[in-house]
């Protein structure tokens, strides 16, 4: 069955798909399937962009995912919400970086470093 396009999804569906993508990316990472991870990344960006243009920016809806049991879901949610909730998002990244749950902990630490250096500019 063909998946609905982000613009045709409800807000709830967008958040659910965003969560599912993180879980699939976690599994792809564990199995070293980087091409699959990257395909999912493109889909995640499309969802992020759709949330951003809805009703003045609905990325706030992803803040509830900071407590998700899957580390990749938490990591994606923190990065995507940096522009709308900078301080909570940075704290979420720091928590992941401190968790020793690698490789997501390493990725989160690199994001904080890239924010500090001005390389990562959340929009």
């Amino acid at each position, binding site marked *: 069955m063909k998946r609905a396009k982000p613009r045709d999804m409800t807000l709830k569906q967008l958040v659910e798909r965003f969560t599912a993508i993180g879980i699939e990316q976690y599994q792809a990472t564990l199995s070293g399937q980087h091409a699959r991870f990257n395909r999912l990344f493109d889909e995640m960006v499309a969802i992020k962009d759709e949330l951003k243009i809805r009703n003045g920016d609905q990325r706030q809806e992803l803040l509830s995912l900071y407590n998700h049991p899957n580390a990749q879901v938490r990591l994606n949610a923190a990065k995507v919400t940096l522009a709308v909730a900078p301080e909570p998002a940075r704290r979420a990244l720091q928590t992941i970086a401190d968790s020793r749950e690698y490789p997501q902990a*390493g990725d989160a*630490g*690199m994001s904080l470093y890239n924010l500090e250096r001005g390389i990562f500019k959340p929009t």
Partner: protein
Amino acid sequence: MVEPEPGQASRLFEAETRAEFAIARVRQLDPHWRPRPSAYESVEGLIRAYESDAEQAQARLRELAAPLSPIIPRERPPTARERYDITKAAARWLAQRWLAQEQRHVVEAPDWFSEYEPSVQAYLDPPKTLSELQQAVSSTKPGYDIHHIVEKDSAEKDSFPKLMINGPENLVRIPRFKHWEITGWYMKKNLDYDGLSPRDYLSGKAWDERTKVGLRALIEHGVLKP
């Protein structure tokens, strides 16, 4: 179905308990999950069905990535990918909990796992200094790989001299699974770099910038002391 023989009864009980425990753990996160039903006509078949249930539950747990202890199947998984997926999951789980040297052998592992144990143990190494990691390059050790701080292929593509790429300052010996994780990080698209992978972002950049990123990646992945 015939009654289990005395030896079978304890194995049956153990398999059933193991399966029930694993399924219960999945249902804490996914209340409606159930394993695929298995057909069986003997006690041995029922034991295999319970073992299959436990392994399916473990696979589901890995998908959900709940921080729960991994179950290592007794039978050697048929493919290297499956074996590595399981050993990496075990290593990650231990890395989040491991506290002291004497706790390193808490895993009750089947025989096939011993081949992978050096990689799991290496993954639990605490961070080391740069000179320790560089000096270790002179000898090989099971569970460890030689890692280029500035990525080799990308540096070659950008025509950096081989003497720099393979020079002692650019080489460190690090735990194999960490080597794979860092290499994976370089290959995956990342919002930090406007959707580029770190490897693509660094393409065309100066040696110093690549070194900065390479060293920081080692720190953030718990390999190099800050």
